[in-house]
Every structure is written in C-alpha cells, then in structure tokens.
C-alpha cells in the first residue's frame, strides 16, 4: 500500500545531491544554491512587499517611485489616506464581516457534517456503505467550475426557508452548498481508519453508543485531521470569488473578494485609484498572511496532505 505517514510536516532531510556535490569538490555549489534562494525570495516576496508599502503612498508617489528601489521601501509621503478613502467608498467593515461569517460558518458546519459522515463510513457497517463511499470519491474529480452555472440555475429554483422561491442574494447560498465536501470526508475517513478499532470495542463494553464514541473518543483524537480540514475549507471559502459574484447583489451580504470589483470601475484624481486598491487588497490579505505565518506548519502540512487528492 502506498500510504506513507511522514512524521514531521516540515521536511528536514538534507538534500543528498547538494551534500554529495560538496564532497565532490564543487565549493561554489552551496553558494549558487543560496544565491538562487535569495533571488527567488525576492521574486515571490517583493510583489507583496510592494503591495503593502504602496498602500501607504499617494498615487503620484506610487508612480514616481516605480523606477527606483523606493518602490519597495516605506519612504516619502506616507499616510493612511488610502485607507480612509477605502472606508469612504465601500462598506468595508460589512464586506469583511461577511467574509468572516461565511468562512467561519462554512468551516464549523463542514467539520461537523463531514467528520460525522466519515465516521459512519470508516468505523460503522451498514448496507450500501461501499456504494456511498464510491460515489463520494467519484465526485472528487469534478471541479466546481463545471457545475457553477447549472448550480446557479438550480439554487434559483429551490424553495427558500421563508416559503419563497430562489436562494439568490442570501448568506445561505454562499455557505450551505459548500458545507458537505467530498475531499474533507476523504481526509477524515483516512485519518479515522488509522485509529485502532479496539477503542470502539472498549467503549461499547462500557455502554457507549456510536455517537458517543464519535464525539468523546474519535474526534478528540483527530486534532490534526480537524486542522487540515479547517484550513483546506477556510482558504477557498475566504478566497471565493466566482460564486459570490454570481449569487450576490446587495452590498449587505457581499464578501470582501467581490468588493474588490468596486474599485475597478471607480477612478481617483488621476485614473484608477491604485493607492486605494492596494489599501483594500492589503486589508483583505494581511489577516490571512498573519494567520498563515502563525500556523505555518499546520498550513504546510495541510497542503502536503492534500496530495492525496486525485
């Protein structure tokens, strides 16, 4: 079986090729490697530095600094004008709050619903189990984009909770379709399978029911799987763009990513208000970057474990 558990999320093994090269009398190789790493660091990091630094500069300075190193340095006429400008133009707090609500509710419901399903599939036995699992896994290859348009038509026909027809322009339409997730079920399923079945037996002897076993034994042991699923649900929910673009009209329920579109049509004193765009972009990016840096190992190992997909 090709199921391999790597213990540490952060790879630590020394690259043998580099080491071997060192012993083969090529002393320049480590230097070359380090130089490459630093250049790439600039390639991947500088655009984001540029974004954040320039969000504090007036449009004239943004363009004025372009030809020099100042483009990446917080120098010159720095102010929060772009930020106050953003708050004047769009209901930023509402957009941001909507993104937070939608992402968190999707993650929380997703954790509960998908782990329960995975528990039933992994540790219990019932007729049709294999068929259900097979169908769930088969849907993994369908990208959301293939069914986005039919889904849009479909949610517009569905009866809504208050008796009317159509789910468009609600929180629910941005959350509920994304709660159940085949990949989350698969990740939980795999993790649950690695927990010894003897625990269930012992609990049953003590008189615990299946739901009790799920809640009090299996879930508390599944911290890493919970973290992985939470991260892999949160990122797409936070970054979601195509779907909210189609299903939301009122600003009261629009998320932050769609809010970015407002700045494309609006112009400042001299053409597009780039300073404000960068301020807005920074405000919707920095919280996630901070989360990422704080929980870096969990993020990276989640992505690494998404390698099972396929």
């Amino acid at each position, binding site marked *: 079986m*090709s*199921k*391999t*558990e790597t213990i540490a999320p*952060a790879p630590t093994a020394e690259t*043998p*090729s580099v080491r071997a090269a060192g012993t083969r009398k090529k002393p320049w*190789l480590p230097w070359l490697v380090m130089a490459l*790493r630093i250049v*790439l660091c600039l390639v*991947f990091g500088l*655009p*984001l530095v540029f974004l954040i630094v320039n969000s504090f500069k007036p449009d004239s300075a943004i363009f004025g600094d*372009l*030809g020099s190193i100042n483009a990446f340095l917080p120098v010159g006429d720095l102010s929060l004008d772009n930020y106050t400008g953003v708050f004047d133009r769009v209901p930023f707090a509402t957009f941001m709050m909507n993104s937070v609500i939608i992402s968190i509710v999707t993650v929380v419901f997703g954790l509960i619903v998908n782990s329960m*399903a995975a*528990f*039933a599939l*992994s540790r*219990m*036995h*019932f*007729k049709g189990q*294999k068929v259900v699992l*097979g169908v*769930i896994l088969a849907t993994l290859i369908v990208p*959301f*984009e*293939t*069914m*986005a*348009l*039919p*889904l*849009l*038509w479909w949610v*517009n026909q*569905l009866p809504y909770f208050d008796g009317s027809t159509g789910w468009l322009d609600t929180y629910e339409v941005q959350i509920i379709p*994304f709660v*159940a997730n085949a990949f989350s079920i698969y990740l939980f*399923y795999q993790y649950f399978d690695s927990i010894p079945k003897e625990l269930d037996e012992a609990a049953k002897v003590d008189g615990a029911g*299946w*739901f009790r076993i799920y809640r009090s034994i299996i879930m508390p042991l599944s911290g890493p799987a919970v973290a*992985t699923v939470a991260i892999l649900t949160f990122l797409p929910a936070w970054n979601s*763009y*195509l779907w909210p673009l*189609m299903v939301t009209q009122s600003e009261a329920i629009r998320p932050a990513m769609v809010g970015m579109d407002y*700045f*494309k049509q609006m112009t400042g004193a001299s053409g597009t208000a*780039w300073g404000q765009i960068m301020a807005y*972009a920074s405000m919707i990016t920095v919280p*996630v*970057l901070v989360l990422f840096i704080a929980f870096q190992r969990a993020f*990276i190992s989640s*992505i690494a*474990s998404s*390698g*099972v*997909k*396929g």
Partner: protein
Amino acid sequence: MSTVTATAPVATTTRSSKKPRTSTSGGSGTAWAMLAPAGVLMLVFLIVPIVLTLSLAFTDARLISPTPAKFTGLTNFTRLFGSNVFWHSLQNTIVFAVVIVPLQSACALGLAVLVNAKVRGTNFFRTVYFLPVVTSMVVVSMLWLFMYQQDGLINSLLAQIGITGPDWIGDPNTALFAIILMSAWQAMGFHMVIWLSGLQTISADLYEAASLDGAGPWQQFVNVTWPGLKQTRTFILITITIAAFSLFTQINVMTQGGPLDSTSTLVFLAVRTGFQQQQTGYASAMSLVFFVLVLAVSLVQRHLTRDKELQR
C-alpha cells in the same frame, strides 16, 4: 499528520472492504443518521447540479424565465461549435494548460529541491515561496494588473536594463502569456510543498548507494529522484491541468476576455453566457464540454497510475 499518497480512491475502497466485520447490532440506523446531513447536502448541491449539467445542455433553459425549459436537442451544441468565440476560448484554455503545466510543475520541483536541505533559513525561504498561495487570486490579479501596466513596475524594472517592455495585458500577443506567468507565480508554492512531500518519501539509502557508485548530482536526480517521484508527478500534473482548465478569476479581474478574445476561456465564456446573458442551457453545453475535457484528463491519469501498478 501529513498523509502523502497519490493512491487512487478506488484502492481505498477495496481496502475498507477487507475490514473484519465486527458485531454492529443496531448500528445501521445511527450510521445513516450520521451520514444524512452530508449525504443530503451532497445530493442537492453536488449530484443534482452534475446531472443538471448533463441535462440542461439539451434545453433552452434561462436563468430567470416565466416558462419552463424545453428540450431542444443538439441546438446548443451546433450553435456552440459554430461560434468563433467558443473555439477561441477553447484554444486559449488549452494553450494556457499546455504551457502552464510543464512550466509550473518544473519550476515548483526546482523550488522543492532548493529548499529540501537542512541549512539555516530553509524554513524562512519555504515560507516566503508559499506566501502567494495564501494570497487570494483576486488580490494577486489586481496587483499584477498594476505591475503589468505599460508604465507599471515590470516595465520600469526592464527600463533599468534598457529593455522597452510590451503593454503586457493590453496586447493580444502577450496578454495570455502574462496571465500564465502570474498564475504560475501564484500557485508554485503549493506544488512545491507537494513535491517536497514526495521527495521525503525517497529513501536516503538510495542516494548513498548512487553516491558510492560515483553518480553526480544530476545523475542522482535522473536515476533516483525522478523515478521516485512518479506518483507525485501524476498527481501534480492532474491538479495543475484541472486548475488550468478552470481559469476564470484572473480573466475576470484583469482582461474580461480581451483584448480581441485573446484571453477568453471556457469558464469565463460560460459565466458570461449563463450569468450575464442568463442563457443557462447554452452555458450548460459549454460546461459539459469542459466536463468532458476534465474527465478525459482524469482517465489518462488513471491509466498512467494503473501502468505503474502493473510494473511492480
């Protein structure tokens, strides 16, 4: 935990069937009850839309319409295959995929090899390379739209070394290429991590042995690393390809399909048709073409995976 495997889901199913049947008196009802929330949601928001993609494509369904959809046979498809924009979009989508798949996977592998060493600062570099992945594509697109401007950051930097850069996004000859470059930049860290987890599975003994046999770094890469990454490779190729076929956000934020349809893609066209023009039936026909493409790629991947199992 990081479970690193590219096992086809089917294999997992077979494994679970070998589980010893334990006594489960009365568990069946509870099992279905625990499965029900996810099951119902997936039925309504996943299975039904997939079936709708297949069926609405043969109707004249509109997003908002007083009359119910009528069956129209292959009308949508004859219209689609006679449409220039569709062929342009299909071509752009395929060009995008064909260029970005080798570009992004090779560069990501290069990154992975570069940071797969235990020296000072490795963690820092890996984190920086990964930063664009956690930045949303909407933000990345806006940022690069600025950088790509005629008088933007990239051309200013090029001017420093005496090169007059093109109007990246405004020129139909460079627009798609510019978007490819940006998309690869954004997602490379993601696949670097996947490659890294593949590299971790290769035993250090193999490198020792190769080294004793006098193999240099390049020979070691060709004879040890590359064959050891076969499963990872298949997985990475399929995910990049599917992501490439799904190209939408960058187009919608940066170009709206222009200039001259040079960056229109299947998903962008489907959204314009099914959302802005409300022609759900016609958009479903496009989605179906897209679906067939994805399915074909997945079947090829399955085929490659099976070949590998046979060779063992």
